[in-house]
């Protein structure tokens, strides 16, 4: 018979125990009369349901088993192409890319180490590790190294990696959380215990303690401190060993040195009846440092929530309809293009697709940050992950889940998270030098005190080692940037590169690429000019009839007007205009007129060189085969917020420019309305680029705003580029940031947030420097007891993290 465990408390029940209580209708084994009594009482007072609801059921649970998941087992499975399909992304030229979730990352040094080690492996093209999200994006050549080889390489330097899926990340957050709490628990209980002994030891020192009792208390302290040192303190010891092995100094090094010295010298003192023991300091160090690190970790997890939220919208089921329109529940990631799905009101849309049936409104806040639902009708495209608000709709899925908007977004976001600006690296290097300086200082401090007051030398050095806080230095920038990125994505702005935020801060000039960035793309007819004596309304009716077949934005300007029903044989000539015929009764009999509307070059009758009206603007020509009939001036509507944005930008001292490829004079009209003086129209991509270059030569930092789809070299030429992109075009976007809301208003807030981010980074760095400058001399002078130094250093790095989190509000 396998070993049973007590139904009440979960401890093992041995064969000779015969205690049992009937709970929830069944006899349950108990380990002792105590549990039996408790269980009987719980049943008797009518709280039997406690057993149903308790979080965790003791029977059969073996907590030790899941502490050591044997993740290297079955590792070769990861090389199976079928399995890889769901999380490996194919890059051009046969390379592959994966996002790995790494456990065990505690500081910037880990990131440095991982990147260095992986980038040295043959076959790995590129590796970026993000400290805040614990994600690594690795691209590799499958012929030179296998995925399992990569995971093994990561294990080799002491970390655990697994392919990233949102569920896994959440689990690993839970696991990390639980382990951290247990460590804190052990350290906290140990610290309390040892403190009581320490107090009586101190008291004893004053009142003259019986040496036998002193020895006894020391032994008990040693016993209690041992698990605190080896179990709770393990993260610091491991971190230090790792960083020493890789010759890169991290904050763990001085802490581990202090812990090790304090612990072993105390054990030695206990064995040999030496003068001082520091068990209380060891426990306090570990406890405070762990608490500080735990809170820091919580903060990091909090800023991860955004990307988890994004991913979460994909982890769900869909009601797939069969031929008889019967819905069956299938996982959303198993949908293929062509599947029809039913989405009820209040449900998340499972994938990108077109509405076949139903009118509803959709909340796209997941993409755009905009909470107001947008109405969607039959034939409209909807995006997976957004929320269907009003009515049930039937969709036809149009993309594979892996290629969907949401997946693309996630990939872009992950890339940005894993990318790391140069400032991080710099801060980390400074921190590393700083640690070296601390180590040297503590040697000097120790020798000084050794000559002046040998009995104080040891604890003073402990304080010096622990009080300094290189973490605050190396955390100052990354935490702020991560928090800012999370906040930005809530505002509907996706920073796809790590340097985006830094770039945005320095912007002096904003260049609007194409007028379309500032306008809605909804043209309206502003003016009609007749070239002949024909009636204006008759002309307009002809134009409306011709344009009725086209969905071109310009053509739509004519849709509201009454059509002349006699225009026939309509034909769209792409990029030029529309032509059609009109039979007219004239005194000489029936005449067929060939009508054309569109660009002047296209519409003008042969041999006639059209003379466009003087007024600037975009003119459309209507003509028949003999003569020009009239002109229509159409104008794009400005985005409602363009005005605001431009004036905000100008007020904050940024210069605005419009670059436009068309020659119609439209750009000038828009610029005039918005008060922008610098306009270049009829510009080729080379022109645009040289314009940006000339701005840059005069010291400007250029932000380029465009649709992001074309003009890649121009976008790349700018210091920062932002695409105002609809979700559908995401995959082709080549910009540093994407404004998903398709509205310009957030840009102003974004720039403000970036400003605030850098203010916080400055505050953080100043604090870190100030703290260390004050704490180090004080500790060296012996004013800071060891326990206070641990408190100070934890509080200092916590302050940095909390300050950064203000951005998340």
């Amino acid at each position, binding site marked *: 018979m396998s070993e049973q465990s*007590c139904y*009440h*408390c*979960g*401890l*093992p029940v*041995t064969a000779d*125990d015969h205690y049992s209580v009937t709970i929830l209708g069944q006899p349950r084994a108990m380990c*002792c*009369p*105590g*549990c*039996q*009594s*408790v*269980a*009987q*009482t*719980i049943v*008797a*007072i*009518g*709280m039997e*349901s*406690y057993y149903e*609801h*308790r*979080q*965790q059921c*003791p029977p059969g649970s073996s*907590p*030790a088993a899941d502490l050591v998941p044997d993740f290297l087992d079955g590792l070769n499975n990861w090389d199976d192409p079928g399995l890889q399909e769901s999380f490996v992304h194919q890059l051009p030229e046969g390379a592959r890319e994966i996002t790995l979730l790494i456990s065990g990352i505690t500081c910037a040094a880990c990131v440095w180490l991982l990147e260095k080690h992986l980038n040295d492996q043959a076959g790995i093209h590129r590796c970026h590790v993000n400290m805040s999200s614990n994600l690594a994006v690795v691209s590799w050549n499958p012929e030179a190294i296998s995925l399992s080889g990569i995971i093994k390489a990561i294990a080799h330097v002491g970390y655990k990696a697994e392919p990233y899926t949102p569920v896994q990340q959440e689990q690993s957050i839970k696991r990390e959380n*639980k382990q951290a*709490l*247990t460590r804190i*628990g*052990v350290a906290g*209980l140990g610290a*309390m*215990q040892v403190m*009581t*002994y320490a107090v*009586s030891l101190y008291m*004893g020192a004053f*009142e003259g*303690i*019986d040496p*036998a*009792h002193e020895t*006894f*208390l020391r032994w*008990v302290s040693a*016993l209690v401190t041992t*698990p605190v040192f080896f179990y709770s303190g393990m993260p610091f010891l491991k971190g230090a060993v790792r960083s020493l092995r890789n010759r890169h100094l991290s904050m763990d090094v001085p802490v581990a040195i202090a812990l090790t010295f304090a612990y072993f010298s105390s054990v030695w003192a206990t064995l040999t009846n030496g003068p001082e023991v520091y068990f209380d300091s060891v426990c306090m160090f570990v406890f405070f440092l762990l608490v500080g690190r735990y809170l820091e970790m919580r903060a990091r997890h909090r800023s991860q929530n955004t990307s988890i939220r994004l991913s979460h919208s994909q982890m769900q089921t869909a009601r797939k309809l069969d031929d008889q329109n019967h819905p069956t529940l299938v996982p959303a990631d198993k949908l293929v293009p062509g599947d029809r799905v039913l989405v009820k009101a209040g449900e998340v849309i499972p994938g990108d697709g077109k509405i076949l049936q139903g009118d509803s409104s959709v909340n796209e806040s997941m993409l755009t940050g905009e909470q107001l639902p947008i109405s969607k009708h039959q034939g409209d495209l909807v995006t997976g992950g957004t929320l269907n608000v009003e009515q049930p709709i039937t969709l036809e899925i149009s993309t594979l889940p892996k290629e969907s908007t949401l997946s693309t977004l996630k990939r872009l976001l992950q890339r940005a998270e894993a990318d790391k600006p140069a400032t991080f690296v710099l801060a980390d290097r400074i921190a590393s030098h700083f640690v070296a300086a601390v180590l040297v200082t503590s040697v000097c401090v120790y020798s000084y005190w050794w000559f002046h007051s040998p009995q104080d030398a040891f604890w003073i050095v402990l304080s010096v080692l622990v009080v300094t806080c290189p973490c605050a230095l190396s955390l100052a920038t990354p935490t702020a940037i991560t928090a800012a990125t999370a906040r930005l994505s809530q505002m509907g702005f996706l920073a796809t590169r790590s340097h985006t935020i830094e770039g945005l801060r320095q912007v002096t000039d904003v260049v609007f690429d194409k007028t379309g960035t500032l306008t809605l793309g909804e043209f309206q007819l502003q003016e009609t000019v007749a070239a002949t004596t024909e009636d204006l309304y008759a002309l307009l009716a002809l134009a409306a009839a011709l344009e009725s077949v086209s969905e071109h934005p310009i053509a739509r300007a004519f849709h509201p007007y009454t059509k002349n029903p006699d225009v026939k044989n309509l034909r769209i000539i792409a990029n030029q205009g529309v032509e059609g015929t009109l039979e007219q009764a004239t005194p000489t009999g029936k005449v067929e007129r060939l009508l054309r509307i569109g660009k002047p070059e296209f519409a003008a009758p042969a041999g006639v060189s059209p003379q466009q009206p003087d007024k600037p603007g975009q003119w459309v020509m209507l003509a028949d085969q003999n003569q020009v009939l009239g002109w229509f001036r159409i104008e794009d509507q400005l985005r409602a917020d363009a005005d605001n944005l431009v004036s905000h930008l100008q007020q904050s001292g940024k210069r605005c420019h419009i670059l436009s490829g068309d020659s119609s004079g439209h750009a000038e009209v828009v610029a005039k309305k918005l008060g922008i003086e610098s306009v270049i129209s009829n510009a080729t991509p080379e022109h645009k680029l040289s314009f940006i270059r000339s701005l840059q030569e005069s010291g400007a930092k250029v932000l380029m705003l465009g649709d992001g789809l074309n003009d890649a070299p121009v976008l790349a030429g700018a210091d920062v580029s932002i695409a105002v992109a609809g979700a559908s075009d995401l995959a082709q976007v080549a910009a540093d940031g994407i404004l998903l809301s398709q509205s310009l208003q957030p840009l102003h807030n974004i720039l403000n947030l970036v400003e605030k981010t850098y203010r916080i980074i400055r505050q953080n760095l100043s604090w870190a420097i100030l703290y260390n400058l004050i704490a180090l001399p004080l500790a060296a002078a012996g004013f800071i007891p060891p326990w206070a130094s641990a408190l100070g250093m934890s509080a200092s790095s916590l302050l940095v993290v909390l300050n950064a989190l203000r951005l998340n509000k």
Partner: protein
Amino acid sequence: MDFSHDLIAAFAVGFMGSLHCVGMCGGISSALSTAIQPMQGNPMWRQLVYQLLYSLGRISAYACAGAVIGLAGAGLHAQLPDHGPSYLRIFAGIMMILLGFYISGWWKVLNQLERLGAKVWKRIAPLTRRFIPVDRAHKALALGFIWGWLPCGLVYSALTWSLGSGGAGRGALLMLYFGLGTLPAMISVGTFSHILSDFARASGTRLFAALMLMGFGIWTIMSQLSH
């Protein structure tokens, strides 16, 4: 000075032993917390306050028992020769070692003692009904007081210490410290129960606590015999 060390040791015994009890008493503590009537205010703080009240009641029960036993011990002490080793303390040391065996699960001889206690408990248990649901502070306090009489090998071995303490006041004080030692584990049960009980149930933790207690027992006996 000597007695204050006893107090610290009692605290330590309570602390060590209670790690073992998290599974057992954690259950009742959680069950009782479900009995708290929903009221306004921060649920976590209220939980904590009620947990403290239960424990306060429980510890006063221990102190009462300690007073009674301490008094009885003092009476007994008068009958014994007052030079040489204190047999009552040696007895306490033996109990401590037995407790170590009990907690490690090697030899559950204390179960016999618990069985005796269970008979007493049967008479007391019905009283609990009066205080359920727990909607007032005094009910929580009373319930905790009753809970203090649950059959528990840990409490019994601590009581043998009061036997040798030399008086009602000292016996009560000793049990008070013992109870305070159990406080950290019991209070934290409410807050992060499952994490702690996993940890407490781990065989390593139990072994560690058991060895500590046996060490205490041996030390107690040795210090008496060396007199």
